[in-house]
């Protein structure tokens, strides 16, 4: 097992590469998925993040502020217009409401009075507009003898409707948990491709080096045995890397595993890893150049992640992009995670597609390897 031993030894020389990729992965996994677990037992009203600047400080403006505060999350905002616009642009706030000094008089005379900074293209802008207009409609309706009946308005606004949520079996109570795992495992696609191609590729480039290969050819080591040990080394390394990512999910959110179909994530990740290992095998048979291997690692990991729905959900990607993504196993891996089905049978086609890709990569790789030997 000399070859196997040296393969592992050389792979461990690239431990910083594995470690940096893994740390980057966990950093993103934690930042991007924090706060995703939220059980949805009943209907939850969407609260907007809004800023209120009250220059009037009148009973009417205070009452409006109280109402908006009860319906939304209030964010501190600067009165400077440039900063307000930037906060809307960055989606730190959904809207900023500016109440002027002569508020009450202008409400009574039904003038345009409240400045609302918002993005007109978003549903949130409709919601804040509706809340403000409703409050002022009610306030004006109670305006008699120069006074607003704000208690009556407040009492009326406390009237609620019943909201019932339907359940469809697969989704509902564990939606938030599933969302976390979906996000986490989708992201493993990026780091798996990056790690496999760069680490295994770099080690294989050393083994495929011209002088080493010549020495191997004149050694007593049989070619088949040499290759067997190399492939075993690749399999071991891939297994360790994938195991770290699976273990990571168990360590971070282990207590929620029973709420989801963890087996599907597990099988999917293992099948995907196999398929990417075969892709790595193919790349190693295409090039021996470390620089090209590195470039391919960066381009393929980022590229397939962006077009297959790892970084952005598939529902937001265009049809042409998704058509292109179908030529890579990452698309089917992400699709299974996004399906959130309860049985393996439901995802058998996508599992099969990944295996098929793996097989195709393997066969082309073997063909290239055979051709290279003949030369």
């Amino acid at each position, binding site marked *: 097992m000399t070859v196997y031993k040296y393969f592992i030894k050389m792979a461990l020389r690239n431990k910083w590469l594995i470690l940096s990729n893994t740390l980057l992965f966990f950093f993103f996994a934690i930042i*991007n998925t924090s706060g995703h677990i939220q059980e949805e037992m009943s209907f939850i009203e969407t609260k907007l993040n809004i800023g209120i600047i009250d220059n009037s400080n009148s009973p009417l403006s205070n009452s409006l502020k109280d109402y908006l505060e009860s319906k939304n999350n209030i964010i501190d905002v600067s009165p400077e217009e440039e900063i307000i616009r930037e906060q809307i642009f960055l989606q730190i706030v959904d809207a900023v409401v500016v109440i002027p000094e002569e508020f009450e008089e202008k409400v009574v005379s039904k003038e345009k009075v409240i400045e609302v900074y918002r993005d*007109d293209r978003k549903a949130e802008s409709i919601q804040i507009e509706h809340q403000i207009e409703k409050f002022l409609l009610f306030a004006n309706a109670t305006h008699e003898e120069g006074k607003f009946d704000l208690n009556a308005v407040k009492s009326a606004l406390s009237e609620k409707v019943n909201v019932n*949520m339907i359940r469809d079996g697969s989704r509902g109570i564990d939606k938030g948990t599933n969302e976390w795992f979906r996000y986490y495992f989708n992201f493993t696609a990026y780091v798996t491709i990056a790690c496999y191609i760069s680490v295994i590729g770099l080690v294989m480039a050393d083994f495929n080096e011209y002088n080493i290969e010549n020495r191997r050819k004149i050694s007593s080591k049989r070619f088949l045995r040499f290759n067997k040990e190399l492939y075993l080394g690749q399999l071991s390394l891939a297994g360790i890397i994938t195991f770290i990512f699976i273990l990571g999910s168990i360590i971070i959110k282990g207590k929620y595993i029973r709420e989801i179909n963890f087996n599907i994530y597990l099988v999917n990740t293992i099948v995907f890893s196999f398929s990417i290992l075969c892709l790595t095998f193919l790349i190693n048979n295409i090039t021996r150049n470390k620089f090209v291997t590195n470039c391919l690692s960066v381009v393929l990991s980022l590229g397939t992640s962006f077009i297959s729905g790892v970084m952005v959900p598939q529902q937001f990607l265009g049809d042409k992009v998704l058509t292109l993504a179908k030529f890579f196993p990452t698309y089917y891996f992400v699709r299974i995670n996004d399906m959130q089905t309860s049985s393996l049978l439901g995802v058998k086609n996508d599992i099969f597609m990944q295996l098929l890709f793996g097989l195709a990569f393997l066969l082309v790789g073997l063909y290239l390897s055979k051709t290279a030997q003949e030369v």
Partner: protein
Amino acid sequence: MKTLLRNCIYQGKNLIREFGFSFWCLIYPVILATFFYLAFNGMMDIELEDINIGIEKGNRIESILEEIKILNIHKVSQAEVQEKLNNGEIHGFIDSDLNLMVKESGINQTIIKEVIEQIKQMERLNKPIENYDFEADHILDRNQEANLMVIIFYSLVAMVSTYGIFGGITVVSVIQANLSHIGVRLNVTPLKKHEFLIAGVIVGLALNLFANGILFIFIKYVLKLELLNEFKYSSIFIILGNLFGTALGMFIGASNRKSENAKITMAVVIVLFFSLLSGMMGPNIKVVLDKNIPILGRINPISIISNNLYRLNLLGSTRTVREGTLILSLYSILFIFLSYLFLRRRDYDSI
């Protein structure tokens, strides 16, 4: 001057022929921009979509709902409700008692709820209908488009503008006798090192600016994205980004005796880390950091460039231009000065 020009030509040829430079400075940014575009384009063009409401035939609030522009009314029988909610045809169903049925929580469902609540609340307020003026409009609209995703493109531009770092490392490595063969030759000839160094900086800056230009042309004419509407200050920030990158590269090159490859890895990690903090891998990271550690966005060179670029080009704001240019200039001067300290009077006992 003639020597400087000759040095520039030789070093320029050298750098262009290097595949590493071509890939990282010319090809990689274009590939990244393409991927960003493919992934995020759909999320940048938001359109206000109608909200689909299901009601039974003869519901008493049908005429009220029809008056509201954003609502689409669908006639749905009780038997179809579950199916239509499940397949997303309707966002909510209102029954004859004004109860709402939904499949999930969300902004559209919340808006439907508020519309029905208004009807109930008016009943509770118990005022004659003529007291309500439904035509009154109290809102002065101040529209501002939100576009968090575009931050990724500005971060990419900012990152690429600092790729002069590679030229900086190369030129400093080349003149050091313990790191390159050319350095050995240079140190035993009467050629002046500082001329070689200045030529290297000029070439590094010029080629990276050229690479930035290619990226901008690609983004504008191929991806059809208008990132640069304001030219004057934007180009100042891009040039300063190049200067900062080259200065940092010179500092990395001069401050230690690691191999050129190790220094380039160091440079990639530093630039990538700064870019990550500025939102290149996801704008939410920038938002979270701006909220919790706001000083970071003001001292991170990539954030300074990307923040100013979107402020100038999309918000028309120049409020942080002076601060940004000052900090970037100070960084550049500091790194050039430190590199000079490391490089001056360096002697070799044996080369």
